[in-house]
């Protein structure tokens, strides 16, 4: 595959072409206000719908008797997520557990797109659909990972306000951990702490998958006979990364929301 598309382009062109999004216009800035990443939106939505369809099918035909294969599979995932939530989150799980499940499955499916041969869908898009560029791994796009982490960020505040109240949250933000006398330091520390959460969540996932995709692109530049061993090795390693990154994203989400949901006032008075 690489030979065909690589023949017309230099390696640098090949790589940079692979890292270009299918966009609504040609704004090339690092942060764009007007450029839609159509490929990311398309693939992430399709993958999300696959997840929802499969799980909804299982939910419609669900039985408390002997489960079928699909139900069995879905139950394993749901119990796994539910147990992860149960382990750290105290309180009503009717929102956070489905939230964590959606994150896990969606991110997992995003990451799985990295296992599709790098040139397959872009070539199809270029020659059949006439698309100038196509990136198929949503989690290798910051837009997708930040969308998730900012949603998590929003719910961190949601749970904080819910458990501590706006005043309690403000107090904690201003007076913790050094006390009222060192108020500016408290603000700096807490701001960094709060900002670090969505940043690290989004960038960890993005970095891993972006790097993974890049390595696949570089392997695709090798002559065909030299691709097999490194391609296979990276692929096998990537199966681990795909699952692990989805799991890490979900677990950290649960941990952050659990921390936000805990009321520190009680501990303070002891």
């Amino acid at each position, binding site marked *: 595959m690489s030979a065909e598309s690589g023949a017309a382009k230099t390696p640098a062109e090949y790589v940079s072409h692979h890292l270009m999004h299918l966009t609504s216009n040609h704004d090339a800035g690092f942060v764009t*206000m007007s450029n839609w990443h159509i490929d990311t939106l398309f693939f992430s939505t399709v993958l999300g719908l696959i997840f929802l369809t499969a799980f909804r099918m299982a939910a419609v035909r669900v039985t408390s008797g002997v489960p079928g294969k699909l139900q069995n599979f*879905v139950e394993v995932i749901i119990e796994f997520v539910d147990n992860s939530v149960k382990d750290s989150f105290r309180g009503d799980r*009717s929102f956070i557990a489905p939230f964590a499940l959606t994150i896990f499955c969606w991110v997992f499916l995003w990451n799985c797109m990295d296992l599709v041969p790098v040139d397959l869908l872009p070539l199809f898009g270029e020659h059949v659909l006439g698309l100038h560029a196509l990136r198929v791994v949503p989690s290798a796009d*910051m837009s997708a990972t930040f969308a998730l982490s900012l949603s998590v960020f929003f719910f961190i505040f949601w749970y904080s306000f819910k458990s501590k109240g706006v005043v309690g949250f403000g107090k904690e933000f201003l007076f913790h951990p050094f006390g009222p006398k060192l108020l500016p330091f408290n603000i700096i520390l807490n701001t960094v702490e709060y900002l670090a959460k969505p940043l690290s969540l989004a960038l960890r996932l993005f970095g891993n998958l972006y790097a993974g995709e890049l390595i696949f692109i570089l392997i695709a530049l090798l002559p065909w006979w030299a691709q097999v061993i490194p391609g296979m090795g990276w692929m096998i390693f990537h199966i681990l990364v795909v699952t692990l990154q989805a799991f890490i994203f979900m677990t950290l989400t649960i941990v952050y929301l659990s921390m936000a949901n805990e009321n520190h006032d009680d501990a303070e008075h002891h």
Partner: protein
Amino acid sequence: MQASIPSIVGQMIVFAIFVWFTMKFVWPPITKALDERQKRIADGLAAAEKGQKALLEASKSGDETLKSARTQAQDIVAAANKQATQMVEQARADAEAEKARIVAAGHAEVVRELTQAKDSLRKQVGELAIAGASKILKREINAGAHAELLTDLAAKV
């Protein structure tokens, strides 16, 4: 490498819709089924345990019933044996009494017949003695005149 703000917002909206869908239509039915199954398994295990206990109790009470039936049967047999022995004894006693009675009756008959024979013999001997005496006296004795004498004589013989 580019972060697209509209894409982020779009993704967040999609994500929100997905989470809402999962929360409404995926999570509750499946966790409900899981809880139900858990309950059914727990109930089943409890029922099995109860059944086993009931079985144990039933076999125990069965043993007891068997034992008491056996004792009862033994009692009945013993009572029957005793009754049979009693009946045999009774029959024997009855038979002994009957025998004694028959023997006594026979004896009485014999005595009676003997007396009768003696009486008739005495009478005949008296008559014979009278006939002999009349022959010896050679004269006819007036039976009417001497009936008293004759009867007296017969009684004496």
